């Protein structure tokens, strides 16, 4: 869950990190009022993607009237597919230097990594590649957090690389200690996988101010941060219900499914991310194009399977579905029951290829057979079969498959 800039800054401010004064505006009128209160401001589109500046989503205005006009323009924008629902109106800073300060997950070290750089305002991954000496890293003990001496070491390493900062490194290091400790506590308490201030502005007066903020919350921990999710939803869903995200993925999220929408025509359902990824690979290797990734997860029950089939078939580009189940925690009988229910209740007529093996596969196969469905071919063969059945079809229902077999003719007699 990626928070919007203003949400991140509100979290920073609440924790005691200095941020520029600002107001959120959801209408041009609110932006005008904010500018009347704050004076000269930047009007910034609130969207969960980067590159909004280049896209024209930021305007610096001198008067409330300008603020109103620019806010109206920006609120009508759509940036990289995300409709702008709100703007953040923020006062400017007297910038002397821009540095970078962030905390993010380091998969290789199995820890959060704290990154400090004298090169702020830029893409930190690019800096890491082109000027590695500008980057200092620290992997704090997760219980202890970064200690003052560690942060000072980090600061001296990062700041000495910048001649303009080297002289004031002592003062900056001292100021960075509480800021970095606060940021770390924040990343911890918010379950952030990324918690970044870029640029972290050193003002002419020597203060450190967070001029931009990025906060991404771990999806597994969203249950601990329902309030932020609700706030985010309020700012990203318009009156029309649109969020800028893929409508199929929004629907899948609503249904509680792990689904990724793709451009092809073969619906893919499986249990376990690895298996589904492999299913996509097999479909592609057989010459087909997957329409989606849908993982029903471990221990999925019959209703989940039905839900998944319904979801996949809601995409009109889907010409047929490949269901690939290897039961470990998922049980064959549950899956079979789900497929049977789905066929009956959803009146499915498009071709389905079911490959089932693993825990309770006997029971599952028996159920399917009793219902007139024959599962059991290998994954590679199943992929070839579904591609064969869907490749020539130009959308809609293939004439050969509209019979009374409930959409499962391909399975017949293939075991």
């Amino acid at each position, binding site marked *: 869950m990626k928070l919007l800039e203003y949400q991140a800054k509100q979290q920073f401010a609440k924790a005691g990190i200095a941020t520029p004064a600002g107001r959120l505006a959801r209408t041009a009128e609110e932006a005008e009022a904010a500018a009347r209160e704050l004076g000269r401001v930047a009007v910034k589109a609130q969207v969960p993607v980067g590159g909004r500046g280049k896209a024209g989503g930021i305007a610096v205005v001198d008067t409330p009237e300008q603020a109103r006009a620019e806010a109206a323009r920006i609120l009508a924008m759509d940036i990289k597919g995300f409709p702008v629902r709100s703007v953040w109106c923020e006062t400017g800073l007297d910038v002397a230097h821009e540095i970078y300060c962030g905390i993010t997950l380091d998969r290789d070290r199995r820890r959060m990594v704290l990154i400090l750089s004298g090169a702020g305002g830029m893409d930190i991954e690019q800096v890491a590649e082109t000027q590695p000496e500008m980057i200092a890293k620290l992997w704090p003990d997760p219980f202890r957090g970064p200690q003052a001496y560690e942060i000072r070491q980090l600061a001296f390493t990062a700041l000495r690389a910048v001649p303009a900062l080297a002289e004031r490194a002592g003062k900056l290091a001292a100021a960075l200690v509480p800021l970095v400790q606060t940021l770390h506590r924040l990343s911890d308490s918010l379950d952030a996988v990324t918690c970044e201030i870029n640029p972290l502005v050193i003002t002419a007066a020597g203060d450190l101010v967070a001029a931009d903020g990025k906060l991404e919350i771990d999806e597994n921990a969203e249950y601990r941060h329902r309030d932020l999710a609700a706030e985010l939803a309020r700012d990203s869903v318009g009156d029309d219900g649109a969020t800028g995200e893929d409508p199929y993925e929004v629907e899948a999220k609503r249904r509680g499914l792990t689904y990724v929408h793709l451009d092809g025509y073969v619906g893919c359902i*499986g249990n376990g991310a690895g298996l589904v990824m492999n299913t996509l690979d097999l479909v592609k290797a057989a010459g087909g194009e997957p329409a989606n990734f849908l993982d029903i997860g471990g221990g999925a029950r019959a209703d989940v399977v039905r839900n998944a089939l319904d979801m996949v078939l809601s995409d009109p580009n889907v010409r047929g579905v490949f269901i690939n189940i290897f039961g470990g925690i998922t049980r064959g009988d549950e899956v079979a029951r789900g497929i049977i229910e789905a066929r009956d209740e959803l009146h499915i007529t498009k071709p389905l290829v079911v490959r089932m093996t693993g825990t309770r596969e006997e029971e599952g196969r028996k159920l399917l057979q009793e219902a007139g469905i024959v599962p059991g071919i290998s994954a590679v063969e199943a992929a070839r079969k579904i591609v064969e059945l869907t490749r020539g079809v130009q959308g809609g229902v293939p004439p050969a498959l509209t019979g009374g077999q409930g959409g499962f003719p391909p399975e017949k007699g293939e075991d």
Partner: protein
Amino acid sequence: MSILIDRYTRVVVQGITGREGSFHTEQMQAYGTDVVAGVVPGRGGSTHLGVPVFDTVADAVTATAADCAFIIVPPPFAADAIMEAAAARLPLAVCVTEGVPVHDMIRARAVIDGSSTKLIGPNCPGLLTAGECKVGFIPNHVARPGSVGVVARSGTLTYEVIQGLSQAGHGQTTAVGIGGDPVLGLTFRDVLELFAEDKATRAVVMVGEIGGSDEESAAELIGKGYPKPVVAFISGRTAPPGKRMGHAGAIISGNRGTAQSKIDALTAAGAVVGDTIEDVVRLVGERLGVHSQR
């Protein structure tokens, strides 16, 4: 011979009375696993599935000399359960829980690093020593005893590989599903090191996927002169960049973590990489043939 677990392993199940905990405990018992205790706070003194239940892991270990924890508790309690297993000095803890918050796991992993406990998981299918013991979800009927070690990130692909190997007549020593979370216990490299020492294991199958750089790290180990043939498979080769594919942590950033970078690293290190599971099974057959002729 095997790694990590065998017929003498004594398992304590943390979360034994839950729906899934009960189901998989029964499956493990059916496979022959010696489940000696369960732990559910507040249920101490009762019996479940013929096994005594304790309030704490420490109590269970004192009473039953358990030496392996099977952790099947809801996500908010998983990290604490792992720490409890480590505090009780269990040599092995297997956590299958999916959806554990990453900060929880970072803390649990730090505790594990300072302990004598090896952790497998979370969000993994667990492991199985063919014909002797299983701890986790791997279906009971797919494995058969033999000489191939298996290590995989994805649960379902672990099953696929085991089944494929078994059907082709290549039995297994131990199959380990390490799980797909970004912060986990044993890695490919750790498990490869264990297989290197296991006399019964004559070849290793490694099933990786996009995301992270654990496969590259394993390739580094293999490149230093790994003593056994390694056949690898990488899934997610057709996943579009920047799309997160489910819970597997399969997200691609920059050049690192792509299927191609992993395949290249493994090939350069001397492993052979199959295009499909069928391929992998065939390649294992070739290697074992070559190997057994020595």
